[in-house]
């Protein structure tokens, strides 16, 4: 036994809270990372999918003979072939939910543009594409409906003939006494507010490589997903294979934003094709397909009514929410608008709400979780309504917010929607944002600008969100997370996280936490994820949960392994009491010590096994949170509108976010900037548009305006910190904060700029055309 009895002299620097550059990056900046499309297997075949060009049609016939005759084409399959394959799963459990059968290949009807009709498999991707062009499908075109309000109108075409009203579900949530609130009201304001369809557009499209080994009855599936374990469970069910013979690998994943928090037809189809032909098969989604068949976000038409007193006190809020669901339910489609309802009260103190959600079928691709998932819609709504109320009352939008904030002494704060806000000081964070931007000075500047005929706006959003998803009771497939910490016999440390980071940087931040807790050099630590044969079961990455749930699971695993290290250390030192710190186990009475690496080595050799302990040095922890966390913040945007062109210039963007404690502030900055870009994208540029025939008009980057570098403002970001009591790290989550905070700040800013023209509300996106019409006296 190589015990040293001298205390360690090298004390390691504490890393949590440091702006460490990422350990993920060397492979990414040198082009040596492995995304799904980079996976190449021996005798790999390629699949290309034939898709519907119509929004609604009956399939009269499919002729695959020409495609099959093409040299290099190995197989062509249609909906008639997929007997026994399960339908695409949906995790929602709303009462009375109507669930259309969502087959992986269309049966006798197509329900949206892009609906998969056939799959062509060839030895080469170009030949597979040639083959797909040779598949001849005859359609009997039917009338489509793509606008959710039109879908609800009497006589509208039925998306699914068995449900002629196009209603998939209705959902009600009431809190407090809404009738009393509206009876007491001195003022009521109403507004219809839309949150348009958005296309998530991860830069890496989806892709799948499936490798079925017939003799082992085993499947290896590489797929670009945020939820490797959940996807394996659900796909195993669809394919009728055993989970323990099914290895799912999420290799490098090129962005998700919720769009890869799902289980898709193509994942099951590619696997099924591999099983059918007994060869590895690759399918890579084109960008056009990504626009057409990967989920969209948002898709709301909301009718708000807010009741208040003349002094600005908000009494209650009513909402009728029409959710454009699309033609089918993907994994969480019906759940998303229910999150909007939960978030309705925002940061405000009122306790009376009434909400009705009407989930509506349309001949469009399903909506589902897209960065923020339900909460941006709600936050945009409440933040717009507060501004509209302030305008109605002639109050300053800052003043009305201070008047209605939940106070610090009210936490934990039970909301009218049944949530329990964990911690916060909303007024303090807001004040910091106001001071940073010099709010009162700005209002003076604005008065001068207006006097000079310029259209300057100041937009405020004080947002809250529901993060760290979440308690299992509130999550369709479990809301816990898992972590394994293992010392290798050499003393090196491997961490396995059940989360599935794809850009968020946990290979770095989790190593920081591990290094600090164990006193091990960070270079001795490796963090692994995204492979179901390596990592214990986990839930995955979404809902700003990596750190606040996955990090908490890791923290508890680290505490448990520290206890084990102490017990083995005490046995090695023959001491009754030992202290563990800085990577060393010390007998305080004698001054003798052993390093954690020496303890780990001894635990594997089994030389000294304390009574009641097992050999080895591995701990796995599953951790269930007791609550969500509730980050919040204040975003303020100063803008100026060019009346002649309708252009909007963002002059300043100040964000003060409170996300609790931070493991690595450099990563936090990146999350906030990226989130803000997506939120500004919704406010100003992005919209997924279908025409009345069901064609996706914005089907490429050519017609869908993504935020580019020259369009983005400089974001002045700072923080306040009220640690969350929900988890031991005090972290709240940051993945979605920027997206939720930015959108209403931008819209409020432009509405404020145009308020001298009598403008009270503008629906997103605020395109120059829309703004020009307003500044030139036309109807937007």
């Amino acid at each position, binding site marked *: 036994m190589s015990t040293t009895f001298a205390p360690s002299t090298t004390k390691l620097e504490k890393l949590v809270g440091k702006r460490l*550059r*990422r350990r*993920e*990056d*060397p*492979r*990414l*900046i*040198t*082009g*040596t*990372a492995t*995304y799904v*499309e*980079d996976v*190449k297997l021996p005798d790999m075949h390629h699949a290309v999918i034939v898709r519907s060009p119509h929004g609604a049609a009956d399939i009269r016939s499919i002729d695959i003979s020409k495609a099959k005759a093409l040299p290099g084409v190995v197989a062509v399959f249609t909906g008639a072939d997929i007997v026994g394959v399960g339908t695409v799963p949906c995790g929602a459990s709303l009462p009375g939910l109507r669930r259309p059968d969502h087959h992986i290949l269309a049966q006798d009807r197509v329900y949206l543009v892009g609906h998969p009709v056939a799959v062509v498999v060839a030895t080469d*991707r*170009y030949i597979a594409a040639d083959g797909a062009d040779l598949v001849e499908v005859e359609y009997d075109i039917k009338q489509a409906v793509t606008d959710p309000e039109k879908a609800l109108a009497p006589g509208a075409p039925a998306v699914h003939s068995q449900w002629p009203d196009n209603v998939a579900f209705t959902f009600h949530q009431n809190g407090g006494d809404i009738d009393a609130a509206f009876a007491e009201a001195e003022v009521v304001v109403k507004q219809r507010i839309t949150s348009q369809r958005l296309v998530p*557009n*991860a*830069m*890496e*499209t989806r892709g799948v490589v499936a490798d079925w080994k017939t003799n082992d009855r085993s499947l290896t599936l590489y797929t670009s997903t945020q939820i490797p374990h959940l996807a394996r469970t659900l796909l195993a069910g669809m394919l009728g294979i055993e989970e323990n013979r099914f290895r799912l690998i999420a290799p*490098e*994943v*090129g*962005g*998700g*934003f919720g769009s890869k928090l799902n289980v898709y037809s193509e994942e099951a189809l590619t696997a099924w094709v591999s099983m059918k032909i007994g060869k590895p098969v690759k399918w*890579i989604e*084109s*960008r*056009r397909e990504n626009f057409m068949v990967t989920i969209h976000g948002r898709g709301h038409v909301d009718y708000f009514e807010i009741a208040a007193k003349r002094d600005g006190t908000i009494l209650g809020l009513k909402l009728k929410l029409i959710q454009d669901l699309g033609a089918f339910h993907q994994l969480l489609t019906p759940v998303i608008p229910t999150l909007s309802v939960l978030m309705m009260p925002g940061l405000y103190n009122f306790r009376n709400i009434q909400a009705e959600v009407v989930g509506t079928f349309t001949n469009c691709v399903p909506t589902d979780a897209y960065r923020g998932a339900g909460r941006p819609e709600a936050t945009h709504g409440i933040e717009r309504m507060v501004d509209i109320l302030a305008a109605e009352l002639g109050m300053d939008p800052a003043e009305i917010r201070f008047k209605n904030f939940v106070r610090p002494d009210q936490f934990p704060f039970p909301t009218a929607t049944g949530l329990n806000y964990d911690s916060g000081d909303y007024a303090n964070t807001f004040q910091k944002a106001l001071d940073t931007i010099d709010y009162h000075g700005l209002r003076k500047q604005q008065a001068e600008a207006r006097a000079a005929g310029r259209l300057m706006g100041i937009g405020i959003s004080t947002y809250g969100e529901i993060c760290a998803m979440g308690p299992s009771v509130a999550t369709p497939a479990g809301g816990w997370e898992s972590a394994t910490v293992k010392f290798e016999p050499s003393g090196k440390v491997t961490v396995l996280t059940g989360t599935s980071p*794809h*850009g*968020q*940087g946990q290979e770095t931040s989790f190593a920081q936490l591990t290094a600090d807790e164990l006193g091990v050099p960070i270079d001795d630590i490796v963090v692994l994820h995204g492979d179901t044969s390596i990592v214990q079961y986990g839930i995955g990455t979404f809902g700003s949960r990596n750190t606040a749930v996955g990090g908490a699971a890791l923290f508890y695993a680290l505490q448990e392994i520290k206890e084990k290290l102490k017990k083995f250390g005490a046995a090695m030192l023959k001491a009754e009491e030992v202290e563990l710190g800085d990577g060393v186990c010390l007998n305080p009475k004698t001054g003798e010590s052993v390093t954690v690496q020496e303890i780990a080595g001894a635990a594997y050799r089994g030389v000294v096994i304390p009574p009641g302990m097992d050999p080895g040095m591995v701990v796995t922890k599953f951790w269930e949170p007791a609550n969500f966390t509730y980050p919040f913040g204040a975003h303020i945007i100063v803008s100026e509108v060019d009346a002649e062109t309708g252009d909007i210039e963002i002059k300043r963007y100040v964000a003060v976010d409170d996300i609790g404690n931070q493991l690595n502030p*450099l*990563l936090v*900055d*990146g999350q*906030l*900037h*990226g*989130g*803000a*870009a*997506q939120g500004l994208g919704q406010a100003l540029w992005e919209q997924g548009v279908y025409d009345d025939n069901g064609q996706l008009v914005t089907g*490429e*980057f*050519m017609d869908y305006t*993504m*935020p*580019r*570098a*020259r369009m*983005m403002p*400089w*974001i002045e970001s700072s923080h306040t910190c009220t640690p969350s009591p929900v988890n031991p790290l005090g972290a709240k989550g940051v993945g979605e904060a*920027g997206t939720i905070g930015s959108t209403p700040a931008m819209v409020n800013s432009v509405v404020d700029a145009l308020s001298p023209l009598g403008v009270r509300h503008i629906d997103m996106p605020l395109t120059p055309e829309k703004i020009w019409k307003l500044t030139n006296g036309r109807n937007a």
Partner: protein
Amino acid sequence: MNRTINLSVNGKRHTHQVEPRLLLIHYLREVVGLTGTHMGCETSLCGACTVEVNGKAVKSCTMFAVQADGADVVTVEGLAGPDGKLHPVQEAFWNEHALQCGFCTPGMIMVSKQILERNPDPTDREIREGLDGNLCRCTGYQHIVNAVRTAAKAGV
């Protein structure tokens, strides 16, 4: 039908028989085996596929391999030195946290190198204009702008 092409990729000579319709990006990824260059949109609008052809940044998703016959092509794999020393733009991207998922990054690095070769001391506005052909969905571009500015100071 196939045509023979001779070209240099990252300083190494290659001769291959290729279909005239083979895209340069597919040639680089699947024939040469360099998968650092990524296909993001197939329509030259996202820039993930940016490589250098004869010293100029080019979107390899909308160029045929046969058009690169005789050319010198540089991909992201060709930037670091033979000793593994990173190019200053790569180093700056790492230091400034200019990437998250990393999918757009090879293209971003190639175009950033080009921006600085054309203008060694760009303003932030010029950097943003220079990045206009490249999309990133993760970073909001702020750290990418920082990285290009930092690389400029390091003297590319």
